């Protein structure tokens, strides 16, 4: 009777690895994608399966810097879709890329407010108003960097009550009512739906985020990876990205 708990422990240890069985390496295409691509890539994957039914697409989403760290530490990944070119260039400099990166999409920024825009935010100049709680992504996050560039171009000194760790966190702050306004990607706002309102930024002061994708050295299925990158840039792939608010490259 005394060995009961021990046996249970062993059984759990033996059973655990069974939960993580994955596809065979030859048919699996493992893709790392920036978190802002979550909704669009999930839709893309469904379409890709129709085109290439024999390939098993495995998507991992996280903040771009986290993905870069994992790739640098040797994660076996075939394709990497980054939210900015800086991070991709770093990997290229370290010889982690099998082929040069290609930009497959662009993204625009917009001002985000509560539904109905109760505080009457009309443009970037309003983000200087003392009576508004404004949050931006941190300067180390691509979207945060773009937002700050955008504000400076418009002659507004950027100020943020909190340097959020991601664009998603900016959207959540506004959606929960903690902040009055922020700056986020158009695509994020589209995904957030009715929880927030997007205020477009005048064309004159638009900075476009560019999303590069590349085939990685560490991957074991370059053929499958190439097929996915080609699909991203195909008419069908671009149409799906456009549905989610992305601009073509």
């Amino acid at each position, binding site marked *: 009777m005394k060995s009961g708990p021990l046996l249970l422990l062993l059984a759990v240890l033996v059973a655990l690895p069974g939960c993580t069985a994955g596809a065979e390496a030859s048919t699996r295409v493992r893709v790392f994608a920036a978190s802002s691509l979550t909704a669009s890539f999930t839709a893309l994957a469904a379409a890709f399966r129709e085109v290439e039914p024999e390939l098993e697409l495995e998507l991992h989403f996280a903040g771009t810097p986290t993905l870069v760290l994992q790739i640098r530490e040797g994660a076996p990944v075939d394709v990497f879709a980054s939210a900015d070119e800086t991070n991709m260039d770093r990997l290229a400099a370290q010889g982690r890329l099998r082929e040069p990166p290609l930009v497959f999409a662009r993204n625009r920024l917009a001002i985000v407010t509560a539904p109905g825009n109760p505080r009457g935010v009309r443009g970037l100049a309003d983000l200087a108003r003392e009576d508004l709680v404004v949050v931006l992504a941190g300067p180390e996050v691509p979207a945060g960097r773009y937002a700050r560039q955008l504000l400076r171009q418009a002659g507004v000194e950027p100020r*943020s*009550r*909190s*340097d959020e*760790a991601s664009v998603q*966190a900016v959207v959540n*702050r506004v959606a929960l*009512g903690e902040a009055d306004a922020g700056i986020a990607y158009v695509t994020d706002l589209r995904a957030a739906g009715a929880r927030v309102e997007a205020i477009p930024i005048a064309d004159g002061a638009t900075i476009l985020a560019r999303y590069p994708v590349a085939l990685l050295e560490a991957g074991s299925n370059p053929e499958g990876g190439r097929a996915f990158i080609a699909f991203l840039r195909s008419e069908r792939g671009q149409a799906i990205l456009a549905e989610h608010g992305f601009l073509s490259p």
Partner: protein
Amino acid sequence: MRASGRGLDLVRRALVLVAVAFLLLPLLGLLGRAPWGEVLAAVRRPEVVEALLLSLRCSLAATALAALLGLPLAFWLAGPGSLTRQLVRILVTLPMVLPPVVSGVALLLAFGRNGLVGGFLVESFGFGLPFTSWGVIVAECYVALPFFVLTAEGGLRARDRRPEEAAATLGARPVTIVARITLPALLPTLSAALLVSWARALGEFGATITFAGNLAGSTRTMPLAVYAALETGPETAIALSLVLVAVSAGILVLMRKHWFPIR
């Protein structure tokens, strides 16, 4: 029986070695990769010092708050079993199970500007917790409180009640008994409870960044600074982490007599 006893002893020793190695190897990894020049430079950077001091201030305040709120709760929970106590114990365990980021969202829903209580706070006192150091303390306390309560409760349950009975027969009131008999006898457990809750508060990231925000000087504690540094490259993050590890280890060494009494 004797032979199997020796076999078990070998297994036990092997497991001890594996456990020590398991804890040691990641630390060695950090130390091996550490840009030592950068570590020394980091300690002198004002924003690092600022984050470090903020971390220490907030984690100590959160620990004190957890002890203040947690001790009476632990006493109550250590009382005779009842359904209410079981339910409250589940409630206490909840922040340990919740992903910290979810804890942060939950705190916003309660104490945020539009939260259940937060709206009242802002309207009545013009004071909101998010984006302030108080918010950091509240977030850290929320995740650290269970560690304090459950550790203290365990000690309270296992305590020797005989001296308390003796004190009662000598004419001591419950408050006197707690102050002069129970708490002094419980010091090792309370120290352990303070230690684990402080450690949890010091390393707190998810709930803090979600609830309090991330701004240098007021809400950017060391873990948040480490995370921000991670965006630009792991070396800086490692350097900052090592500063945090070194400072906490230093405090542990200084306080070891209180926290790990050698019997």
